């Protein structure tokens, strides 16, 4: 929803305020960060495997399913029916789901494994409140 400000001054008598010519719409985070509302979903993460990508335990992800997943995208992936968040890497050795934390193992997608890209993570919302 877009909020538009009211005009700053009453017009009927006297001169309009010179500031009225410079009015702009209020800043709307939705417009900036949700480019495709029909395809955008919010997802909460639990865990630490993506910490070096700036995704912390409890963060919220803005997932845009209309974006194409390319090698290097951080994606919500479905592997054998289970959801996860990893960096997608496609190279000569195959398709990989890479964690961003040395304590976790990369996952090579082998024959017989089912991989489906649920959506591409467009933004992370991380609260700095203690």
């Amino acid at each position: 929803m877009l909020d538009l400000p009211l005009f700053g001054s009453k017009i009927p008598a006297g001169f309009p305020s010179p500031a009225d010519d410079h009015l702009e719409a209020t800043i709307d985070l939705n417009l900036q960060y949700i480019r495709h509302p029909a395809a955008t979903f919010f997802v909460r993460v639990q865990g630490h495997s993506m910490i070096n990508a700036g995704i912390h335990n409890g963060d919220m992800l803005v997932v845009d399913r209309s974006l194409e997943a390319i090698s290097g995208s951080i994606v919500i992936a479905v592997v054998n029916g289970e959801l996860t968040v990893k960096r997608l890497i496609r190279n000569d050795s195959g398709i990989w789901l890479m964690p961003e934390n040395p304590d976790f193992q990369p996952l090579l997608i082998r024959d017989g494994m089912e991989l489906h890209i649920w959506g591409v993570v467009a933004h992370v919302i991380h609260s700095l409140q203690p």
Partner: protein
Amino acid sequence: MFAIADCNTFYASCERVFQPHLNGKPVVVLSNNDGCVIALTAEAKALGIKIGAPYFKIEKYAKQEGIAVFSSNYALYGDMSQRVMHVLSRYAPKVEVYSIDECFLDFSGLPIDLTAYCLNICQTVKQWTGIPISIGIAPTKTLSKLANRLAKKGCSPSGPVLDWRTLPSAETVLESVPLDDLWGISRRWSEKLNAIGIHNALALRNSNPKEMRQHFGVVLERIVMELRGISCIPLEEMPPAKKQILTSRSFGEKLTGFDDLRSAVTHFAARAAEKLRRQNLATQALTVFIQTSPFDSSRPQYSNSATTEFDIPTNDTAQLINSAHHGLQRIFRKGFSYQRAGILLPDLLPAGVVQATLFDSADDLDRSEQLMAALDTINRRHGKKSIRYASEIISNKWHMRQQFKSPSFTTNWQELLTVRI
């Protein structure tokens, strides 16, 4: 040229988007109060589950076969529906949202390969929203519904899309379609038609439209013409304004106390008032009704209703609740087990078409309007139940049974999809 896009097993598909391990598994969705099956996937159908089956009858079997069971989650289905409709509206100059999971598209004047175009639509809707859809294309709405049906049955070489014009023999197909499967043909009509020797869609197409009009009315004449490929039912871009609003429900457990019923009808009246304001309507009257179970012959039965008329059409929650309470007082009888209650607003007008009476001051109307606007804003922002009238919460016995409801993944911050990483 028309098309209808129809979501495949929509409610179950919504559940699967957020629980992908259910893909390929049997899923059923139950009606309000977990009464009976209202949606099911092909896998559940293959196990013998049928639409309308009472849950208590299939409960044991469902557990044994590992069928995933959900209470209906209309917050989720409504949001997912809007997403699907939004994507569809990008692909056609005119659309008509026909139901929560169906949408007509008008492709007139698009000189393109519609099958390829629609395959692309299906793929985009699936990628953007996770919901699988099928599309039927035809020169008329009636035939597009039929083409969609065939595509869903797997009769199309192009998978989820079927263009009626590409069928090798439309006659053979029409001959195999029973009348009940046609859009707009009621059970009663199909029985009557059967009685005069019209048993399938081909026979109906070949019947005399003028005669059909004489016996059944103009609607059936149009269907005959539409089956011949002549479009008579245009796209309705603006749905006709609602004429009435009904909010009612069967209770999880039967209610006997006045306060329990009062709490329930308060809730219904509040919801009905919200619906009115959302559509900018006002009502001229309110009917409150209560009834015992018509299926329980072992106990005494009673049902009754009371209608109040308003001097001025209103959509004020307090006023609706007030008249619901007065009505309920008039019809409530002790000693019965009530199974259902509801509020009907039978006669709606656009709000603002208000004739103030001699005794209303414009100020009063203004104040009510502002109060209701504030109430709606708060409840939209902080969740449906943030501010309520006290009489709504006196009793909670009437609340719905929703044992298996999934989270409201897309409409509630507290219930977002959580992924372990």
